C-alpha cells in the first residue's frame, strides 16, 4: 500500500510539473517593445558574414529602440519553403523569388503592407515593372522588391589561364563557349562547361538558355497561357548541351547538379564555365570560399531575334500572421536593411563599410530596382568600399543594360522547371535521348496543370 501510494504521488507530481513548465512559455509581457523574427543569411555562410549581419542588426536596434530583431538563418528552396509555409514557421520577414510572389499573394499568404510602404519617401520611384512583381491584381503592395538580377556566364579565370585562354576575352558566342569548354577539358582535364540539372534549377537555366537563343517557354493564349517547351530556342540549347556532352566530352561527370552543388564545384575550382544569376558572387565567397581573384563574369551570348536575358529578383515580404505593430516594425526593418542602401548616401556608405570591414562582398553586379541612374549613383557613393573586382565583372556590366531583360515564365513556373530538369538529365545521361518527344511531354504535362486552374 505504501509503495503504491508513493508511486501515485510521484506520478501526479510529475504530471503537475510538466503542466507548469508548459505554462512557463507564455508570451512576455507587453512592455512597448515589438519583437520580430527576420531572415538573416544562408546557413553555412562564414562567421565573418554573420558578424557583419549582427553588426547591422545592432545598428538598427540602436536607431529603433522599440524594435527587437531575432535573426533566423534561411535559404529559399522549393521543398523547405513549402514545408515552412504549411507549418507556419516562417519568420515575420522573409524573402521569396519573383516567380512565387503572385501566387502567394492570390493565396493570401503575404501581408498587405500598402499603407506602410506608401509612408516611405521613395514609394513612387520604383520601376513599375519591378514593383509589379510584389503587387496583387488589385494593385495592393504585398512586399518590397529588394534585388533584381540577370543571368550571366560565370567563368573561372584561373582555369582559363591554365588552359591557355585569355581571361580578359571571355567567349561572346555559343560557338566560342563550346570551343573554350573543349580547350579546358582537353588541356586541364577539368569540366569545361557545366549546367544545373536538378531541384528545379535545371529548368531555370534551360529557360535562361532558351531566352538567350530567342525562344519562349510559355506564350499568352487569350486569357490563358500555352506551353511551348518545344520551341527552337530550347531545342538549340539542348542540342548545344548534347554536342558538348557526347561529342566533345567537356561537361565533366556530374549531371545532377543544382544551384548549391554547382556553386560548390565552381568554388572548388572544378568547373570552367556555367550560367547562373549575376548575383552569386556573394554565395561563392561567403559559402564556397572561392578566391575573388579567380571569379569572372561575362554577359550571356545572345543569338537570334527576341533573344534576351532572363531576369529575376527577390521580394521581402511580411508574414500574414504578423500583427499591425509587427507589420510596421517589419517594414521599418526591410527599409533599413534592404532598401536604404539603394537610395540614401549615408545608409549606403554605412552598409558598404560594415560589409567591407568583415571582408564581405560589396558591389556585386545587380539590376536596378528604381532606375539605372539611381543604381549608378549608389555605386558612386560606395566606390571606395567596392571589393568585388570590377574589371573581372566588367564584361557583364558593360553589356547588361543593352540586353533586353525578360521575365520568367508566369504559369506554374516551378512545375515547368521541374519537368525540364528531367529533360536535361535525360539529354546528359542518355546519348539516345529523344529531345522532341521529351519536350512534347513537358508541353502536355504542364498544359494540363494550367488548364486545370481555369
Amino acid at each position, binding site marked *: 500500500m505504501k509503495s503504491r501510494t508513493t508511486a501515485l504521488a510521484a506520478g501526479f507530481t510529475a504530471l503537475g510539473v510538466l503542466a507548469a513548465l508548459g505554462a512557463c512559455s507564455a508570451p512576455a509581457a507587453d512592455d512597448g517593445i515589438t519583437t520580430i523574427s527576420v531572415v538573416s543569411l544562408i546557413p553555412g555562410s562564414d562567421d565573418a558574414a554573420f558578424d557583419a549581419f549582427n553588426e547591422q542588426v545592432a545598428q538598427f536596434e540602436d536607431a529603433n529602440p522599440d524594435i527587437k530583431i531575432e535573426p533566423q538563418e534561411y535559404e529559399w528552396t*522549393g521543398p523547405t*519553403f*513549402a514545408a515552412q509555409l*504549411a507549418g507556419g514557421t516562417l519568420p515575420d520577414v522573409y524573402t521569396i523569388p519573383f516567380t512565387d510572389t503572385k501566387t502567394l499573394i492570390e*493565396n493570401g499568404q503575404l501581408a498587405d503592407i500598402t499603407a506602410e510602404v506608401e509612408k516611405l519617401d521613395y514609394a513612387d520611384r520604383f520601376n513599375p515593372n519591378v514593383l509589379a512583381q510584389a503587387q496583387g491584381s488589385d494593385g495592393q503592395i504585398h512586399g518590397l522588391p529588394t534585388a533584381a538580377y540577370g543571368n550571366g556566364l560565370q567563368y573561372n579565370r584561373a582555369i582559363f589561364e591554365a588552359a591557355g585562354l585569355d581571361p580578359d576575352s571571355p567567349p561572346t558566342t555559343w560557338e566560342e563557349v563550346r570551343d573554350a569548354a573543349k580547350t579546358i577539358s582537353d588541356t586541364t582535364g577539368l569540366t569545361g562547361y557545366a549546367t544545373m540539372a536538378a*531541384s528545379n534549377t535545371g529548368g531555370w537555366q534551360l529557360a535562361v538558355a532558351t531566352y538567350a537563343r530567342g525562344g519562349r517557354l510559355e506564350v499568352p493564349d487569350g486569357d490563358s497561357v500555352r506551353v511551348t517547351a518545344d520551341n527552337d530556342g530550347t531545342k538549340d540549347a539542348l542540342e548545344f548541351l548534347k554536342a558538348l556532352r557526347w561529342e566533345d566530352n567537356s561537361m565533366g561527370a556530374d549531371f*545532377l547538379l543544382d544551384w548549391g552543388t554547382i556553386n560548390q564545384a565552381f568554388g572548388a575550382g572544378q568547373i570552367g564555365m556555367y550560367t547562373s544569376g549575376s548575383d552569386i558572387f556573394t554565395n561563392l565567397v561567403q559559402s564556397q570560399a572561392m578566391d575573388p581573384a579567380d571569379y569572372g563574369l561575362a554577359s550571356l551570348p545572345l543569338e537570334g531575334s527576341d533573344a534576351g536575358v532572363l531576369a529575376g529578383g527577390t521580394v521581402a515580404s511580411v508574414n500574414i500572421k504578423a500583427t499591425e505593430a509587427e507589420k510596421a516594425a517589419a517594414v521599418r526593418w526591410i527599409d533599413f536593411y534592404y532598401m536604404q542602401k539603394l537610395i540614401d548616401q549615408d545608409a549606403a556608405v554605412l552598409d558598404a563599410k560594415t560589409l567591407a570591414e568583415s571582408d564581405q562582398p560589396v558591389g556585386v553586379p545587380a539590376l536596378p530596382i528604381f532606375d539605372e541612374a539611381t543604381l549608378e549613383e549608389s555605386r558612386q557613393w560606395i566606390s571606395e568600399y567596392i571589393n568585388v573586382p570590377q574589371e573581372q565583372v566588367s564584361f557583364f556590366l558593360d553589356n547588361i543594360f543593352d540586353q533586353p531583360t525578360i521575365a520568367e515564365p508566369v504559369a506554374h513556373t516551378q512545375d515547368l522547371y521541374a519537368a525540364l530538369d528531367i529533360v536535361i*538529365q535525360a539529354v546528359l545521361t542518355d546519348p539516345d535521348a529523344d529531345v522532341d518527344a521529351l519536350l512534347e511531354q513537358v508541353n502536355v504535362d504542364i498544359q494540363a496543370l494550367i488548364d486545370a486552374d481555369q
Partner: protein
Amino acid sequence: MSTTVQRRRPRAALSTWLRGGGLSTLVFLLPMLVIFGVFSWYPIVQAGIMSFQKTNLVTAPEFVGWDNFARVLGDPNFLIAVQNTGYFALLALLFGYPLPLVAAVLMSEVRRGKGLFSALAYLPVVVPPVVAVLLWKFFYDGRPAGVFNTIIGWVGIPPQPWIQNAMQAMPSLVLEATWAAAGGTVIIYLAALTSVPPELYDAAEVDGASVWQKVWFVTLPQLRGVLLITLILQVIGTSQVFLEPFLFTGGGPANSTVTVLLLIYRYAFQNSLGGNYGAATALSVMLALFLALLSLVYFQLTKRWSS
C-alpha cells in the same frame, strides 16, 4: 463430469481494479499513450482524412472524395515509381538477402576473432545513414579519378558513370543500401545459428554430407523461422526506400530512381507554393494498405513452414 462455471461475477469491478493497482498502471502507461497518440496514431488518422481532401495545409481544405486516388493512379510517374521500387526491392532481395546469411555462416565457422568480425560487420550500421550516403556519393564520382573508378581501374575495367547513368543508378543504390543494412541482419543470423543443435551437424557428417549439403539440409531448415521474418521485413523496408534515391540522385537521372516514397515527398514538398498533401497522403495510404495486404498473405502462406 462436473465443469467449473464461474457463477459469481465480482461486484464493484472498479474498486477491485483500483485496489489491484489499476490506477498506477494507467499513470505509468499515460506518457506512452500520449506520445504514441500525438506522434503516431493521430498523424495516421489525419493522413487518412487528408487523403480524401484537397489541401495544401495553407488554404482551407475541401473534401474531394476519391479524386486524389484517381489522380495518383493516373499519374505517369506513379507507374514509374512503382516499377522502380519493385526493381529496387528485387535487386535487394537477390543481392542483399543472401549476403548476410552467407556472411553469418562463414563467420560462425571462424574459430577466433568472431567478436572482431561481428563488430566489423556491424560498423556500417552504426554510421549515420546520411553520412554513409554522402560518403558513397563521393566514392561513386564518375570521373576517372573517382574512388571506385580508380579501384576498378586496377583490374582493367574502364571508368563507370555509376549514379550518373539511368541503367547503373539503381544497382548503385542497392549496393550502398546493402552495405549499410547487412550488419544488423548478420548479427541476428549469428545469434540464430547458435541455436542450431550441433548433433544435427554431427549426424550429417556421419552421413557423408559436404559443407554445402550441411548448410542446405541442416542450417537453412533450422533457421527457417528467422529467415521468413527477415524476408518480409526486408520487402517491407525496401518498398519504403527514400533516403538513397533522395540523397544520391534526387530521383534522377531522368526519373530512373524515383521510388514510391520519393514520389510522395515530391507531391508534398516539391512545389514551393504549397504541396498537394491530398495526393501525398492518398499514395501513402495505398502503400500502407498494399504492404499490410502483402504481409497478411505472406503470413498465411508461410504459416505451415514456420515452427
